[in-house]
């Protein structure tokens, strides 16, 4: 599918607007089991992305994604900066300019592997990976793309009974059980924004 400048603008704007609009919710989730800065950090990062929006969307898709990732790495200021930054930068490396669904799925798989390596984590540790992995599985299956946001939301909700094994929440041990993972929630928000903009 051709992702021209107008669509690149729509996508980046939608993701940034969604994250910024939900900053308070993400921060509240993070106050329960983390250091309470996830929403603010992500908001700072995506505000920096919006400040460079014209420059970013003028770039071809792979470079635009790299630039989004780089901006998040430099501006977010928490662990989510390098994690989301790595996700977007690896997508930029792996996606062709006009990806098919299969190519998008494989690029997404490579990006998830890069996040696993960066965070030294895997599925099952109550992290963003617990949302990204089921979304990848649904993307690889031949179902309707419009179903992806619900898959992501359900996966984020499913982090609630999990015990955190990575990040600040892991210090809480059993007490991390019963709260949605903030990184899982922000991942689900981003998936919803991307699908709605496509």
């Amino acid at each position: 599918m051709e992702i021209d400048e107008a669509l690149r603008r729509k996508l980046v704007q939608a993701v940034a607007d969604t994250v910024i609009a939900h900053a308070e919710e993400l921060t509240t989730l993070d106050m329960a089991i983390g250091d309470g800065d996830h929403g603010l950090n992500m908001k700072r990062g995506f505000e920096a992305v919006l400040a460079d929006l014209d420059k970013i969307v003028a770039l071809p898709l792979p470079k635009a994604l790299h630039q989004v990732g780089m901006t998040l790495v430099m501006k977010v200021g928490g662990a989510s900066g390098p994690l989301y930054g790595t996700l977007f930068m690896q997508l930029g490396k792996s996606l062709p300019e006009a990806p098919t669904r299969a190519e998008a799925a494989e690029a997404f798989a490579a990006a998830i592997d890069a996040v696993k390596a960066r965070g030294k984590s895997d599925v099952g540790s109550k992290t963003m990976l617990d949302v990204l992995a089921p979304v990848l599985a649904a993307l690889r299956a031949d179902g309707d793309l419009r179903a992806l946001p619900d898959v992501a939301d359900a996966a984020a909700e499913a982090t609630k009974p999990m015990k955190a094994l990575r990040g600040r929440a892991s210090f809480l041990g059993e007490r991390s059980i019963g709260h949605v993972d903030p990184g899982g929630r922000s991942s689900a928000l981003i998936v919803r924004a991307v699908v709605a903009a496509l």
Partner: protein
Amino acid sequence: MSNVGIVIVSHSPDVAKGAADMVRQMVGDEVPLAWCGGNAEGGLGTDVAAISEAIERAWSEAGVAILVDLGGAETNSEMAIEFLPDERRGRVVVCNAPIVEGAVVAATEASGGSPLDVVKATAEELSP
């Protein structure tokens, strides 16, 4: 100076500076030393650009050992290492050690002229 350099990365500038003060008291100026802490807005957090600058300030041909506190400090330090030019990237390591004790022990080892892998291993002996 050919001794290994030490970089201290904390979420809090006060912690980073305090740890650096303790290192200075221990080893004086025999070891290149830099610290950074806080996000770009001055709140608690870590900042890749600031870590990159700290590595530059503490740069030594013998390499640089980074001591970190919590997750984001480690992840952002690894990111800063990846952004280094090829010829430097292999000579900067993050130590899996407590930040204050690790910095003092690593700097003491470095002040005796030990190579980077020994400095790192000595600091990591503090972690069970």
